């Protein structure tokens, strides 16, 4: 299973990829990941690669080989769409993150073009209203776990397994909040 997590620095892609990796490990698979750590974490484009299976060579997913793309932002999902294999699933947050460059140039970027493009070119698209979930839970920081929840099915990870991974990986005071976000994401995906 090859998964790409694409977003903007600061959105929590690294934690989400770590949780997917841990779930893979706990079911006895070989796992390799690659992270973007460095300058891009300051609001630039970040991509995490997670690969699980019997045998994995490269930590980077080759173009056209991703089973799933988790897009934390519509534009970043589109930017990384060439990674998605035919028939793959994209789980994408609806809300656009407007870069400073767009605000400065007065570009009207709001992600709607990107969502339309995704709807046209992704066979299995799950759009998640991450903003509403974050608002309901009361923290802008749980978008990553909400998206992870929405992606659990296509990732082939069952809820109980991910719950125990979250309990083991997240600081105790944040566990409940993240579990809520996980389930909100799962429910959102079911409604799609």
């Amino acid at each position: 299973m090859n998964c790409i997590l694409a977003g903007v620095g600061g959105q929590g892609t690294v934690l989400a990829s770590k949780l997917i990796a841990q779930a893979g490990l706990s079911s006895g698979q070989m796992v390799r990941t690659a992270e973007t750590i460095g300058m891009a974490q300051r609001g630039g484009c970040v991509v995490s690669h997670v690969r699980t299976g019997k045998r994995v060579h490269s930590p980077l997913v080759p173009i056209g080989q991703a089973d799933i793309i988790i897009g934390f932002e519509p534009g970043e999902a589109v930017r990384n769409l060439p990674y998605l294999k035919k028939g793959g699933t994209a789980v994408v947050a609806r809300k656009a993150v407007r870069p400073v460059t767009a605000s400065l140039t007065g570009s009207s970027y709001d992600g709607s073009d990107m969502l339309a493009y995704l709807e046209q070119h992704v066979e299995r698209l799950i759009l998640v209203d991450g903003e509403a979930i974050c608002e309901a839970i009361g923290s802008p920081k749980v978008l990553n776990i909400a998206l992870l929840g929405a992606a659990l099915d296509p990732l082939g990870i069952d809820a109980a397994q991910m719950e125990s991974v979250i309990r083991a990986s997240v600081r105790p005071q944040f566990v409940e909040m993240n579990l809520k976000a996980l389930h909100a994401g799962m429910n959102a995906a079911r409604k799609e």
Partner: protein
Amino acid sequence: MEKFLMGNEAIALGALDAGVGFVSGYPGTPSTEVLETVAKHNDGSIYVEWSVNEKSAMEAAAGAAYAGARAMVTMKQVGLNVASDPLMSLAYVGVKGGLVVLVADDPGPISSQTEQDTRTFAMFSKLPVFDPSSPEEAYAMVSQAFELSEKYGTPVILRSTTRVCHGCATVNVQERHEPKKAEGFVKDTQRWVIFPRTSFQNHQKIEARNPVIGKEFCSSPFNAALHAGTGRKGIATHGINYAYTTEALELLSAEAPLLKIGTPFPFPEDMGVEFLQSVDEVLCVEELDPVIERALIFLCGKYHLPTKIYGKLTGHIASAGENTVEAVEKALADYLGVSLPAAAHLPPPPQMPVRPPVLCAGCPHRASFFAVKEAMKGRKAVFSGDIGCYTLGNAMPLDMTDTCLCMGAGVTMAQGLHKIEPDAVNFAFIGDSTFFHTGIPGVINAVYNEHDIVVVVLDNSTTAMTGHQPHPGTGKTMMGEISEKISIERVLEALGVKSVQVVNPLDLGAAKLAVTRAAQEKGVSAIIFRSPCIAVVKPARPLAVDAEKCVGCKICINKLGCPALVMESGKAKVEPGLCTGCTLCSQVCPKKAIG
């Protein structure tokens, strides 16, 4: 015990298992987590420090190794340039306890100034080098590197690259963390005091030793000649490219004899020759420099072999940048004459948003840059920058970084710029950690040679870009101990800087006034803009825009470029999840609409 580790963590645990007793370094992407992981697992038996710069780190580690301890020093590739003076000499003097020099290279580059290849540096310094292809191999190489270092009494380089450093994999680690006993320093001036005559003798020994190590490397588990298939077209590769190559061959359903080199210097010649004799051609799949390619060409010349060598020098592999599985797949398909699997063709996407990294919302550097920009409006001024988060001050709309070269260069470059163009006001922006790293000698040079510059220290009380490491101004060490805080203003005063102002940059009025004053001073003047990095302090209440008062002039957005400010339905809007309440925008708003 099996652990899922990032490459850098694997290297750290490898060092612990090898009995390392002393670890020093300076943070730099992608190397930083190695030292941090050692510190995290330290039971108190290992000495760990963030040194003030890579040269200090190298020298301190060399001292520990002279005294017989196993020592490791960590840095990124450009850090090795800073540490090259001690390392070049250390190569001649040698060590007693094992010394592993961990250097992380950055193909791309993703977070660096250069794409230099530490394998080439190893050849230049005549030091053995290991080049891991995975976190698992990186772990295994550390103990081998220590063994080799002690066997031959030489520093050994372990160089890794981003995808190994920041890739995670399952590593089988031992858990014995006992620093190897150190005998203590044994005086021997013939050995430890470098002199021209001993250097001549040591140079002879090094030249005699390296071919011996090259022979030893022929049986290293990190080198392999894998004879798959019966083809006469071979591939030579290294590091993470070995993984890309293996994967690309699988995707192409192709086979080829493969030479994997994990110890590129001293090159395992016999192994190379045997491989060259088994094939007609070799494609070298490398990142950064064509090190293996040149070594194989050299062997073809030395042994009159007819084997053809392809790679970066022949345009078969990209000369710069990071490789990927698909780039390697394409190169291998062309080389082996097999067809590439059909790629899915997506129609071109709508115009993508450009998303360069930016200063965070609420970053005090934004306020500092803006104050200088406003105060210097209409004046001829040049802004020298330096290495750190504040390099991002170059982005529009701030546009406040005219030069950036290497750690500490801003302060000194401003001096040269001003001498040739004395009618400009020359500012040098430097972060607090960079000030301690290499900034101080530049200030001394300015005072001593009577230069006329304004030094602006952007003091956010941390080493922010690499993930918030402590430094001499923070009063904390890597061991978590409280140390004497070194006061930047007192350092500047002691160096003879007559005008030193300390200002909170988030008070825009006071900050602009300080800049105007400093620019009027003759000679060296300094401003310390002091406000903590917003990533390490609790944010203040987010601001909001009063839509009644906002006239949609966009002044806040166009002047500050803060990621928390956006336009919505013709009015400015503050993103509450991003805003840290720094109030800079409310100070800039002509309608007092933000509060």
